[in-house]
C-alpha cells in the first residue's frame, strides 16, 4: 500500500516535471472564457480555439472552456481587468458585438485600451432576409417599400436598439433615405425567435448574421436580400448579392477572436500569439473554422490591436450619429 502510494506519487511528480520542461512558456492551466451561457457564438469561438490548438498539438495541457455570461462580455471584461489582469492561463472570447458595446461605454469604467487584443480567428457578416414568398426580391425593393411607407416594413432582430442588428438596419434605412427613428424595429432575444417571427409573418424583414441563416436558406424558407460584406462570400453563399453591389454601401463584419488580461507578460502574450499564428496557418484550422460557419479573418498581435481600436472609434462615430452615446453613459 505504502509502496504503491509512493510509486504513484513519484509518477505524478515526474509527469509534472516532464510537462514543465517540454512546454516552454506554456501556461499550466489554459482556459478559454466564453462570456456567455453555453451554446452560443462565444462558446463556439472558444471550442474553435480549443480544437485548433489541441489538434495541432500547440498546447500540451488540455484547455478548459468556462462560461462567464453578462452584458455581451461586460462581466468577463471587468473580471479580467480588475481581478485577473496577469492571469496568463485565460484567453477570453470577444465579438464585434462586444466591441460595439465597448464603444458605447456599456462595459463599465473600462475602455478598449484596458486589455491586450490577441487574435481574431474568423468573421461572420450581417445580412438582411425576408420570407421566401415575400414580394421583396432585392434590397432595392425593400428600400423602396420602406421609403414609400416606413410603417409597412417591420424589421426584427436579435438585439436591442443600438445593437449590431439594429445598426445594420439603421444604416440601410439611412441610405434608403429613411430616418432610423421612423423605422419599425422589434427586438427579440436571439436569432431563433427572429426566425420564428419572420416565418410566422409577424415581421417583414430580419437582420442577423449570415451563418445563422444558412439552414433556413437551404431549406428554401427565407430569401437573403443582401450580405453586408465587402465582396461576395465563397462557396454556395456566392449567389447572395452584397448590399454594396446593389448600391447600398453598408458593410458589417462581425469578427470573432480573443483577448488576454492587461498585465499578461510579453513572453506569455508572444506564446499565445505564436500558437494562434501557427494554428491558423494549418489546413486543419480552415476546416474547423468552416465547420463552424465562420469566414476567413485571421489577424494577431499588433495588427489586430490596431484593427480593434479603429473599429471601436468607427462604432463610436456611428453611435454618435444615431444619437446613441448619451443614452449609454
Amino acid at each position, binding site marked *: 500500500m505504502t509502496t504503491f502510494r509512493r510509486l504513484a506519487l513519484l509518477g505524478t511528480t515526474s509527469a509534472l516535471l516532464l510537462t514543465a520542461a517540454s512546454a516552454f512558456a506554456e501556461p499550466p492551466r489554459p482556459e478559454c472564457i466564453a462570456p456567455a*451561457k*453555453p*451554446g*452560443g457564438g462565444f*462558446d*463556439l469561438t472558444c*471550442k474553435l480555439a480549443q480544437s485548433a490548438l489541441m489538434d495541432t498539438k500547440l498546447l500540451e495541457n488540455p484547455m478548459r*472552456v*468556462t*462560461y*462567464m*455570461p*453578462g*452584458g455581451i462580455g*461586460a*462581466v468577463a471584461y*471587468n*473580471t479580467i481587468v480588475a481581478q485577473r489582469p496577469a492571469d496568463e492561463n485565460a484567453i477570453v472570447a470577444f465579438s464585434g458585438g462586444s466591441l460595439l458595446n465597448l464603444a458605447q461605454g*456599456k*462595459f*463599465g469604467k473600462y475602455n478598449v485600451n484596458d486589455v491586450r487584443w490577441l487574435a481574431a480567428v474568423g468573421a461572420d457578416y450581417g445580412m438582411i432576409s425576408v420570407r421566401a414568398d415575400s414580394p421583396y426580391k432585392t434590397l432595392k425593393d425593400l428600400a423602396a417599400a420602406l421609403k414609400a411607407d416606413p*410603417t409597412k416594413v*417591420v424589421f426584427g432582430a436579435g*438585439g*436591442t*436598439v*443600438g*445593437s449590431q442588428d439594429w445598426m445594420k438596419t439603421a444604416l440601410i434605412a439611412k441610405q434608403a433615405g429613411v430616418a432610423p427613428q421612423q423605422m*419599425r*424595429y*422589434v*427586438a*427579440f*432575444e436571439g436569432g*431563433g*425567435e427572429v*426566425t*420564428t*417571427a419572420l*416565418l*410566422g*409573418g*409577424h*415581421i417583414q424583414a430580419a437582420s442577423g448574421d449570415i451563418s445563422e441563416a*444558412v*439552414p*433556413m436558406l*437551404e*431549406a428554401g*424558407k427565407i430569401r437573403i436580400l443582401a450580405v453586408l460584406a465587402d465582396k461576395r462570400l465563397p462557396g454556395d453563399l456566392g449567389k447572395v448579392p452584397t448590399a454594396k453591389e446593389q448600391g447600398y454601401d453598408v458593410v458589417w463584419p462581425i469578427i470573432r477572436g480573443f483577448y488576454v488580461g492587461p498585465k499578461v507578460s510579453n513572453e506569455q502574450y508572444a506564446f499565445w500569439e505564436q500558437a494562434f499564428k501557427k494554428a491558423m496557418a494549418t489546413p486543419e484550422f480552415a476546416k474547423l473554422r468552416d*465547420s*463552424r*460557419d465562420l469566414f476567413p479573418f485571421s489577424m494577431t498581435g499588433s495588427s489586430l490591436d490596431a484593427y480593434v481600436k479603429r473599429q471601436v472609434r468607427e462604432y463610436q462615430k456611428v453611435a454618435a450619429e444615431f444619437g*446613441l452615446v448619451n*443614452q*449609454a453613459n
Partner: protein
Amino acid sequence: METFAQLGAGFAVALRVDNLIVALLGSFIGTVVGMLPGLGPINGVAILLPLAFALKLPPETALILLAAVYMGCEYGGRISSILLNVPGDAGAIMTALDGNPMAKNGQAGVALSISAWASFVGSTVAILGLILFAPLLANWSLAFGPAEYFALMVFAFACLAGMVGDKPLKTVLAALIGLFMAVVGVDANSGVYRFTFDSIHLSDGIQFISVVIGFFSVSEILLMLENTHRGGKLVKQTGRLIFNLKEFMSTLGTVMRSSIMGFFIGVLPGAGATVASAMAYMTTKRMHDKEGTFGKGDIRGVAAPEAANNASACGSFVPMLTLGIPGSGTTAVMVGALSLYNITPGPMLFTQQPEIVWGLIAALLLANIMLLVMNIPLVGVFSRMLSLPNFLLVPGIAAVSTVGVYAVHATSFDLVLMVVLGVFGYMLRKMHFPMSSLILGFVLGEMLEQNLRRALSISNGELSILFNSPITGGLWLMAIAMVTVPPLLRRRRRKQALAAQAAQV
C-alpha cells in the same frame, strides 16, 4: 404508416448496445443532476457535451446521451422539491407546493412514486405527440407572434388568480415583487439599463437561478436552522412507498390533462417547463380544489406539475427538430452540440438524416421507460433522505446551492445576491408570503413585458394587435373565464347548499 416504419428504424438505432448503455447512464446522471438544487438540465447537458465529444461518440449516440440527461433532470427535480422543499430545477417549483406537505405528512414515498408515474405519462404523451404531429405543430408554433405570447401570459396571470387563496393581498404583493425583479437589467427593446445602479453584474438582470436558490434554498436552510434551534422534530415516515389504486384513479384525469397542456406549451419556443408546470398546477387547483386541500398535500397537486413539466421538456424537441429553433435553454445547447457534428437541425433534418431524428425519438421512449423503472425502486432510498440529521443536510444543501449559483456567471456577486435574496425570502416566508407567486411574477413578468412591447412596436402603439387574431381572442376568453367562472360556481354552490339547508329545516 411510413412514420411507423421510420420509428422502427429509429428503434434499431436506439437499441444498439452502446446507445442503450449511454441512455441508461444519461438517465441516471440526469436524475442526480436534476435532484441537486441549482443544477438543472442545462448544466447537465453542458457538462456532458465536451465529454461526448472527447469520447468521439457518433452524433446519434451523443444526442441520445444529452436527451436522456435532459429527461432525467425533469424526473430528478421533483425529488428535492418533495423531500426538502427546495426545488431541484426550475420546472419543479410547483411540485414543492403539495409535494413537501405530503412528505411532512409522512407520505413521501407516495408523493415520489406518483410524481414518477406522472412524469412518465407526461413524457410518453409528449413523445407520441412529437411522433404524430411534429410537422403540423411546427406551423402552429409559428402562428405565435408577440401578441399571442402576450395573451398567453395574460392567461397565465389569470390562472395565478387561483393561487390567491386566503391571502389575496400577500399573493398580489409577492407577484408584484417578482414583477419588479424582472425589470432589472438591460431593457431588451431600447438597450437602456434599468435599476442596475451602474453595476455590470446586474446588466443582464437578476439571474433566475439566484432568485430560485435564494428564495427557496437559502430561506429553507434558515428555516431549518431555526427549527433545529427550537429542537424541531423529524418527519416520520409511513410504510407505504407506492401509491394505491384509489390515488392512481384520482389523479388519472389530472395527469392526462396536464400532459397535453404541458406538451402544447413546450412546443412554443420561449414558454418552457416553468410556465407549463405552473399553469398545469393552477388550472388543476382551480378545477379540483373544493375542500381547500391544495397546498396542504393534495396528491393531484403533485401529479399535475410533474406531468406538465416532463411533457413540456419533450415538447420543446418539436421546434428544435422541425424548425431548428430551440424550444428551451437545454435544447439550445443541444443545437450547439449538433452543429459541432456539422448537423444543422431544421426543416431538412427529417429528410436528410432520418436516422438521427428517429433514433432520438426512439431513445426518448426507451429512456423514459428506464427512468420509470429506475425511479420507482429508488423511492425507498430517497425517502430515507428525510431521516438525515440537519447537521448533515443543511451544509449539503448550502454547498450544492452555492455551486449551482456560482456555475452560472462564475462571479461572487451572484453569491452575495443569493444570500441577500435568501434573507429577504426568509423574512417574507415568516410573514407568510407565498413564494410561488413571487417566482411566477418574476418568470412571467419578463415575457409579459417583452412581448407586449414587441407587439406594440410592430403595430406602432396600436392596441388592436393584442386582440385581433383568433389565437389571441381565444386566449383572452380563456383568461376571462379563468377569473370569473370559479367564483360564480362557488357562489352557486353556496346558494344551493343554503337552499338545501333551508329545505331540510
